[in-house]
């Protein structure tokens, strides 16, 4: 395995601190610097951005950051991904896994789902975000196309949360349910509801979702356990 140079270490450290401090321009500058030093994009994500995003999550849990800060972090991640994306096509190596995500049909809430998307991206997952008000069939169609490791569904309304169940049913009928893991979340969703509809994981927020998805991948690879 290639040893990291002192320069790479310095860039990763700075990048991590810049994004943790929610410094938009500083983060983008460090990403550009890393790319100019020919550091692979997934290394930039995993060694630089991901530790910074983890610390943002920790600060959220300690009530130092709030939704407004997570939304800003999400915005910064989106902008860094705009810089990194052209380089990803050349090398998909290093991706933790594929995560298909969306807010279920009839529901237009997007803040939490967007934050989950960017946290997962920051952790090194390849995220396919279907957006809001996603029909059941669209989850299935995209899952058949990209073969994700996870599907994540969000709902903030009691009237729409049952659509999560119908998506799972559709995946079962098509025979791909057991080939992936299903996450559910959103204000009205609970662990008992997740159990009831046959989801694999419930996550109360983006931080928990990222941790659980990462733990699952590591466990599958035979690494650290849950």
């Amino acid at each position: 395995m290639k040893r990291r140079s002192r320069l790479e270490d310095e860039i990763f450290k700075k990048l991590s601190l810049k994004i943790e401090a929610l410094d938009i321009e500083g983060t983008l500058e460090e990403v550009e610097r890393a790319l100019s030093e020919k550091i692979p994009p997934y290394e930039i994500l995993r060694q630089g951005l991901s530790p910074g995003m983890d610390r943002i999550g920790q600060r959220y849990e300690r009530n130092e950051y709030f939704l407004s800060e997570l939304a800003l972090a999400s915005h910064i991640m989106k902008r860094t991904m705009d810089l990194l994306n052209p380089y990803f096509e050349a090398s998909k190596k290093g991706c933790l896994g594929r995560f298909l995500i969306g807010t279920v049909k009839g529901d237009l809430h997007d803040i939490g789902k967007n934050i989950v998307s960017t946290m997962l991206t920051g952790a090194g997952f390849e995220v396919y975000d279907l957006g809001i008000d996603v029909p059941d069939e669209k989850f299935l169609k995209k899952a058949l196309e990209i073969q994700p490791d996870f599907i994540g569904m969000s709902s903030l309304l009691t009237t729409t949360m049952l659509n999560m169940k119908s998506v799972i049913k559709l995946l079962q009928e098509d025979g791909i349910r057991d080939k992936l893991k299903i996450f559910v979340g959103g204000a009205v969703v609970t662990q008992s509801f997740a159990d009831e509809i046959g989801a694999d994981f419930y996550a109360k927020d983006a931080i928990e979702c990222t941790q659980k998805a990462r733990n699952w991948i590591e466990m599958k690879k035979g690494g650290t356990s849950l």
Partner: protein
Amino acid sequence: MEPLERFLTAARMEEPDEVPIALLTSARFFSRLYGIKIFRFFHDPKMMLEATLHTMERFPDIVFFPGLWADYGIVVEPSAFGSRMYWPVDFVPYVKGDLLKNPEEIRDLEIPDPKTDGLMPFVLESIHYIQKRAPKGFKYLYAVARGPFQVASYMRGPTEFLVDLRVRPDVAQRLIDVCTETTVEWLKAQLEVIDDPIGIFVPDDVASFLSPGLFEKFGLPAYKRIFSEFDGLLKVYHNDADSTHILHLLSQCGFHVFNFSPATDIGVVKEWIGQKVCLMGNVDPVNVMLRGTPETIEEECKRCIQIGGPGGGYILSLGGGPSMETPEENIEIMIRAAKKYGRYPVETSRR
């Protein structure tokens, strides 16, 4: 005491004879109980009135808040700015698309005219209709307007709005200012046509997405502006997001009643602002009222009463409106729990 008198006594931070119960007026719940599609509720003031009266008469021990209400859902204010609305048959209307995709457009944004813009004139007309036809004993009491943060996030998009607060603070401030004045003007327009108003109701969940620093900068001045108006009226604020981190600031805003959800711990709310503001909450509308057992519902109502009730200034309620499919029996359990545990002096409990 009559239920409304009990409610108003608690709102004045006093002890009534027993803890009052209030549930938010809910088009979804009312439509279901009356056996009509939600679409019909919104599109026919006659149905709106009949479905509301049906539920109010079905549960006379409960104060439905704001009670008689020309409710056209969350789309009223955004519609007045020109947002695109979506009206499903079996669901409440919602705003589709973000009107202000380009933040620069915010600079030219103007305060709507309630007499002519969007759904506002329909609401005013429906207030006339409902007042004229309401039977004896039922009055139209409150003006309702969504708060500036809710409206701003509908128009700009919730994530974009939150990002603007840091990235383009001057533009965000302009949007908040316009939305704040809209809330004020819209409340005033309704108060002009309500015969004998007793209060205003301002729901605004998005404010709690802000950090304490951002809320102090943007939220506090906006709310102070709104609640410094309307002297002599009861001012009720609803926010069902987790508000723990801004409670100390919310208590400075000038409203009298705070309706909050289980996302914010009732013990913490009572301790921090319960001496200053009447608390209305916070039984979980989904996990307790919709999906709970008779035992868990009674236990949770008892817990809320014993934390919120002591000393007065407390109204037993849900954190948000009742879910559409809430069983009527579960509401009966809530009423019985209020009678059983809510008689003053209320037994004290620590969480």
